[in-house]
């Protein structure tokens, strides 16, 4: 994307009908480290890449438990993600207190999306710079949603966001039809393999990734490092190269070209990923 005269305020439309500040916010999500999510009929698994800044520092927390039945993985400005997680936790706990019942995921996601939309229509605010993968369970089954800074939300069988997520998406696209009836452990294995795809050849270790699960009879929890490492070893995925990873520069080049194409054509809806 290139600078232009319509990108200073979030409340300024471009002649092509785009809000550039919102699109720049979505760029921030693409720059964050990868997060993936996938679901079956009964379970949802979230995973993310957790690289520490230096050997001396700890990892940033990118997966948050929102309630026993809902969890979220973020990509982008983690501070914005933390604040939104606090909002989600608050909404869930208030609902639980009033109705003695878990907040349906679909409703939480809509509330979150409406909150994000407000920031796209106030001149004194900026959009949240974080994409959220919301995983949850309710009466109607297991759900995975993606909330983006534009205020849109989508339900997915499987999805990946953040840098080098295209590689993970390709892997998930190949396999997603099997997910619906997958047993829980296979789902976790698929999540780990999707994470591995984003690492571009680097060895997959439990110290650089985080995995969380929620399912029927299983409240949302983050798997501890030992369990994750065991699973990695058991499935023998560490250091294995299945298919050559997608070249990240080529992918970025393609995306830039399509954006410019969209600006010229006014065809492609820029808010869709």
């Amino acid at each position, binding site marked *: 994307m290139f600078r232009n005269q319509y990108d200073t305020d979030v409340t300024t439309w471009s002649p092509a009908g785009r809000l550039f500040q919102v699109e720049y916010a979505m760029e921030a999500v693409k720059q964050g480290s990868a997060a993936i999510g996938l679901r079956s009929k009964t379970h949802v698994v979230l995973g993310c890449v957790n690289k520490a800044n230096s050997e001396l520092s700890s990892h940033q927390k990118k997966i948050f438990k929102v309630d026993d039945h809902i969890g979220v993985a973020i990509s982008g400005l983690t501070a914005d993600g933390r604040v939104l997680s606090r909002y989600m936790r608050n909404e869930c706990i208030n609902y639980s207190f009033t109705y003695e*019942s878990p907040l349906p995921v*679909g*409703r939480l996601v809509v509330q979150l999306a409406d909150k994000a939309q407000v920031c796209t229509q106030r001149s004194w605010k900026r959009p949240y710079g974080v994409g959220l993968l919301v995983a949850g369970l309710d009466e109607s089954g297991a759900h995975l949603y993606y909330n983006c800074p534009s205020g849109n939300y989508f339900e997915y069988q499987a999805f990946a966001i953040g840098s080098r997520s295209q590689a993970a998406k390709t892997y998930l696209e190949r396999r997603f039809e099997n997910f619906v009836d997958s047993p829980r452990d296979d789902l976790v294995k698929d999540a780990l393999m999707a994470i591995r795809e984003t690492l571009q050849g680097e060895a997959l270790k439990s110290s650089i990734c985080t995995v969380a699960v929620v399912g029927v009879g299983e409240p949302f929890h983050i798997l501890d490092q030992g369990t994750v490492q065991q699973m990695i070893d058991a499935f023998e995925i560490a250091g294995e190269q299945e298919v050559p990873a997608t070249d990240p520069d080529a992918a970025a080049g393609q995306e830039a070209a399509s954006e410019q194409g969209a600006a010229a054509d006014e065809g492609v809806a820029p808010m869709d990923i």
Partner: protein
Amino acid sequence: MNFIASKQPENRLLGPESDTQRTLYPYVTGTSVVALKYKDGILMAADMGGSYGSTLRYKSVERMKPIGKHSLLGASGEISDFQEILRYLDELILYDNMWDDGNSLGPKEVHNYLTRVMYNRRNKFNPLWNSLVLGGVKNGQTYLGMVNMIGVNFEDNHVATGFGNHLARPILRQEWHENLSFEDGVKLLEKCMRVLLYRDRSAVNKLQIAKITEEGVTISQPYSLKTYWEFSAFENPAQGAIGSW
């Protein structure tokens, strides 16, 4: 959502006594509601009387109403407060439906919402002067609960309000069992209501029985119970105690 008229000053513990906005005593009241779980759902009975003190003033008051798709609410106590509660619940169900997302509030959720409302009003010294019975079925689960004006709430297999607690519940404790058929449930409820009719001064002989199952709510047309006054103990009641009252 506002639960009190906004005329009341903020941040006060007890306003001046000239404040006419608080409920101090009930005026038009309904008497007992009795309800029990049976095989397919809930059966609930209440008479149609609205008493004005000791006068049996109104005789066609419907004290049971369906709430949303899955619940049935019966109330005793101040009728105007019951109508207010119905307005709150109407708004609640409306907002629930407006989500249009396939989720709906079940009886457990409505019961807990009512508990929060009743308890919060009690804490402001402005109670809704009712004892409420909330029953329903959702996804095969039967639920029956009670909440009263001070916020006491609980669930059970059979509940009653007011005099029903003293006269009907002992009968239910003896004779209720799991998986009652519809006919047995109605017979049991009518037995309780008959005792209440004989012994509760504010009962009227015009009642409705309501049932709620997975399919929905049905409230019967009003009818009367057969009573028998020819018991020998009723003849010459002062026989054993002439001169006393």
